[in-house]
């Protein structure tokens, strides 16, 4: 296979995440990985995202754990305090709830409460997302909780290349990072990453340039928004911004875009009320009120637990029709 053909070979986000973990483990002895079932004896993860890693790097550095999220995050915090670069996997984002003390009272605050004497360079990975018939306790996007906690950083990729780069960025970051892996991108092929390159946290990406309305999104919904933008391209020029990092978010990039378009829509899968969209809408409104041509609109999950029944679950999630409707409403 030639280098050129390799460069264009598609890869899924699941494969890109596996590759990022592989490359991080290979690059730095201080990187260790643990979580439920991550070892190859346990199948390399329930969807095989860590497959092959314990075989290559050994059971000491890639460890399966008991189902004990407090113990997992606590051990990761302690190892990070001692100068290692742990990557802790919490199988599903909902299961962070049983480790919230460790994440929000400890990982997030130890640097500040110690006056900068200690730090927690820790990456916590987790998958989640509605649309997979997993019901109310296996599907939530809870990024607003973490973003609302000073001391944590939160990244959510929308494609394989970003999944690789952002995960490497989180692992290299000196602060605790929440890395969310949307199920809705796991098995979708895309352009492969630049191996060895991390994407700096806090920088957004213009996924599609446009002049009429700015749509800000992250995770799987970026792809949904791009599809709508494509459909509307004949009469509306939509600029799509992929936030990539939720906290800290790239306010500069958002404001630059909205200054140009005068219109903004925020789209995410998490429930709309009290969500990231509210923060972004408020921020844009505070800073650009007089330049806005219409109110900043939000599209998000419905305000209910994620339902099981297929038609309910589909209606829970932000739909293409809702995204299109919001875009059109800003132009009305």
């Amino acid at each position: 296979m030639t280098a050129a053909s390799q460069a264009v070979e598609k890869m899924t986000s699941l494969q890109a995440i596996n590759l990022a973990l592989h490359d991080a483990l290979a690059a730095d002895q201080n990187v260790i990985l643990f979580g439920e079932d991550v070892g190859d004896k346990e199948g390399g993860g329930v969807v095989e995202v860590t497959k092959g890693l314990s075989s290559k790097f050994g059971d000491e550095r890639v460890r399966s754990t008991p189902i004990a999220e407090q113990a997992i995050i606590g051990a990761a915090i302690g190892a990070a305090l001692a100068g290692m670069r742990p990557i802790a996997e919490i199988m599903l984002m909902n299961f962070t709830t049983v480790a919230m003390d460790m994440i929000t009272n400890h990982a997030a605050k130890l640097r500040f409460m110690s006056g900068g004497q200690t730090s927690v360079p820790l990456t916590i990975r987790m998958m989640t997302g509605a649309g997979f018939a997993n019901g109310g306790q296996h599907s939530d996007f809870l990024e607003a909780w973490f973003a609302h906690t000073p001391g944590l950083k939160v990244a959510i990729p929308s494609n394989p290349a970003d999944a690789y780069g952002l995960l490497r960025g989180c692992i290299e970051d000196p602060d605790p990072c929440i890395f969310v892996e949307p199920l809705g991108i796991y098995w979708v092929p895309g352009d492969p990453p630049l191996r060895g390159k991390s994407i700096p946290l806090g920088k957004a990406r213009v996924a599609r340039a446009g002049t009429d309305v700015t749509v800000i999104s992250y995770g799987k919904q970026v792809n949904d928004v791009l599809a709508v933008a494509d459909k509307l391209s004949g009469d509306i020029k939509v600029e799509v911004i992929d936030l990539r990092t939720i906290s800290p978010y790239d306010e500069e990039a958002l404001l630059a875009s909205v200054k140009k378009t005068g219109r903004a829509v925020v789209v995410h899968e998490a429930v709309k009320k009290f969500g990231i969209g509210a923060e972004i809408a408020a921020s844009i409104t505070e800073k650009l009120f007089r330049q806005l041509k219409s109110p900043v609109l939000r599209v998000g999950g419905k305000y209910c637990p994620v339902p099981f029944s297929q038609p309910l679950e589909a209606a829970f999630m932000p739909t293409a029709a809702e995204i299109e409707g919001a875009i059109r409403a800003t132009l009305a």
Partner: protein
Amino acid sequence: MPNTQGAKANRPPREVLVELYRKMTLLKQNDERFRAVIKSGRIIGNYYSPRGQEVIPSAISCLLKREDYVCTIYRGIHDSLAKGVPMKLLWAELSGRATGSCKGKGGPMHITHPESGVMVTTGVVGSSMPIANGLALASKLRGDGRIAVAYFGDGASNIGAFHEALNLASVWQLPVVFVCQNNRYAEHTKYEWGTAIDQVAKRAAAYSIPGVHVDGNDPLAMYAAAKEAIERARAGNGPTLIEAMTFRFHGHLLGDVDAYMGQGEKEGWMAKDPVPAFRRWLLAEGYASEAQLKAMEETIASEIEEALNFAMSSPYPEIDELRRDVYAQELPQ
């Protein structure tokens, strides 16, 4: 009086016994001075006095190396001091000054000083244990010989973190010592009312690790139990749970009127105050002279005054500190 069980030849050497007493006296005097200063209004804050529990961290710290790790809890100033946190940094932190070990940003419940091995002081019951496991895991992976000690109270043995941490430490054979300072009360709740087993140490059996029930007010017994556990951890033979029986003399929170205690219960324990008891024993057994101990006590008292004066004459942190140490990179204004 300490229980002088065992042959005299098995006792720690004279210099260790004297150092153990020095630490106990330091913790006792520090606590007495701090309570007086709080009551005078010169320092504002909540205080969870460890008075009465001095023997436990003093004995353990005599056995730890400076680079060994400690994670402790809000009633943990004795643990930090015994491990070697400098008194000036401690007092400046207790009073919220910029010169404190944590620049005044942590306070009494979050004393941290990695140079002394004090990595975490948590205000959350039980949370010292899962983190100590991670420090121990790093030691194990690096083979650097360091061990970790997690201090906690009897109340913490009923929270999930205790059980998750002991299980993982056992499964991974981590070099960690779990030290339960059983002072008989979880905040205001009697041990028996909230704990479904008569000894915390028995819970070790559920995790296939040694569980040791020891008189935590007896310096020799405490030292012996700690020595065995620390040697086990250092040799790579895994964790130990020590339940050290003790009593707190000043309730849960300073100002506590102890209405929930039995009549005369606290008074009974205070009459058996382990610090003067050990002093009498050291003199009776000829390990130290009155003049030597008196000089030691006076030195400690003057060091405390010096630390207090240092703290009181130190500035408060700048307001810009709100933007610092949230992340590695300072936040913009």
